[in-house]
């Protein structure tokens, strides 16, 4: 029960953070609003594949970033990128993002009902932080990968959310966006 309460608190915090996010008027004037999203979240199971990277980074932490065979090497980054259909490299973890842009990515995925994704906290691992930037030739975090393919950062994911592309991209992965069901519910009423 304690755990349940913990999750409830976490969800509430998410929703309030989600509101604070101010993802822009365009997001609100679209086919959804944050309120509906909040009700959606309440019914959704909380599960994500955030593996504590501190475990992976528990070594001496002195190996050079991007070096051959290191945690930031192209090969090891590639493995992480392909570990799951939906992968996010972020600051902090999904339960506690440590950057507004990373938080926005997590909230957008949640809006679409994507709870099961693999998240890596780059703040725990400087090698990975540099390695992922080299891998995608993209200078900033967060970074989102769908089916191993680099999609973009927060701005691009937000735009894909707003213009409907994200629903389509998720469909290609066999993931049905929760927003579609939310719209259907709305139509029934």
């Amino acid at each position, binding site marked *: 029960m304690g755990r349940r309460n913990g999750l409830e608190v976490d969800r509430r915090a998410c929703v309030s953070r989600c509101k*604070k*996010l*101010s*993802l*822009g*008027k*365009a*997001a609100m004037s679209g086919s959804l609003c944050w309120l509906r999203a909040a009700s959606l979240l309440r019914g959704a199971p909380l599960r994500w594949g955030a593996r504590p990277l501190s475990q992976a980074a528990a070594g001496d932490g002195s190996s050079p970033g991007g070096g051959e065979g290191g945690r930031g090497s192209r090969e090891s980054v590639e493995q992480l990128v392909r570990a799951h259909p939906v992968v996010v490299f972020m*600051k*902090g973890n999904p339960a506690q*993002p*440590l*950057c*507004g*842009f*990373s*938080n*926005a990515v997590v909230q957008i995925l949640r809006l679409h009902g994507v709870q099961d994704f693999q998240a890596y906290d780059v*703040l725990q691992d*400087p090698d990975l*932080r540099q390695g992922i930037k080299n891998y995608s*030739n*993209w*200078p*900033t975090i967060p970074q989102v990968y769908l089916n191993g393919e*680099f*999609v*973009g*950062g*927060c*701005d*691009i994911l*937000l*735009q*894909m959310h707003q213009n409907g592309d994200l629903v389509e991209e998720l469909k290609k992965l066999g993931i049905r966006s929760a927003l579609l069901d939310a719209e259907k519910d709305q139509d029934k009423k």
Partner: protein
Amino acid sequence: MLPSRLLRQALPRPAPSFGYSTAGPAMEEKPVESSIRAKLLQALQPLHLEVHNESSMHAVPRGSETHFKVVIASQRFAGLPLLRRHRLVNEILQAELAGPVHALSIQAKTPQQWEENQSVSQSPGCLGGSKHDPHRATKLGGQGLG
């Protein structure tokens, strides 16, 4: 063009400074912002350009130039998917991103898209991640731009 001496005499007080820098004295105060503006203007010939220094929204000292948002409407983006547009901007601002700039939010539209929709998404607030970030010191170290 009036000689600058005459201009100075004609103006009793220094010209008021605007929200973001254009040229002249502001170059000294906001070198990163000015550099971003100049490079984007030159490379993209934008119909519309906004450069916002959003550093004050984040856990960095006052007056920092670490977090920026750019809104660009340019014909150069026509026919390019979003990812390519962003890559183009990242390339143009490569030196800034490798140096002092920690975060860059990009809104890249064609002139037509800009005419249709001139809304600019707000940037999310800070969640304090850079407070304990070792990279922060490097970015705030005031590395000069080439």
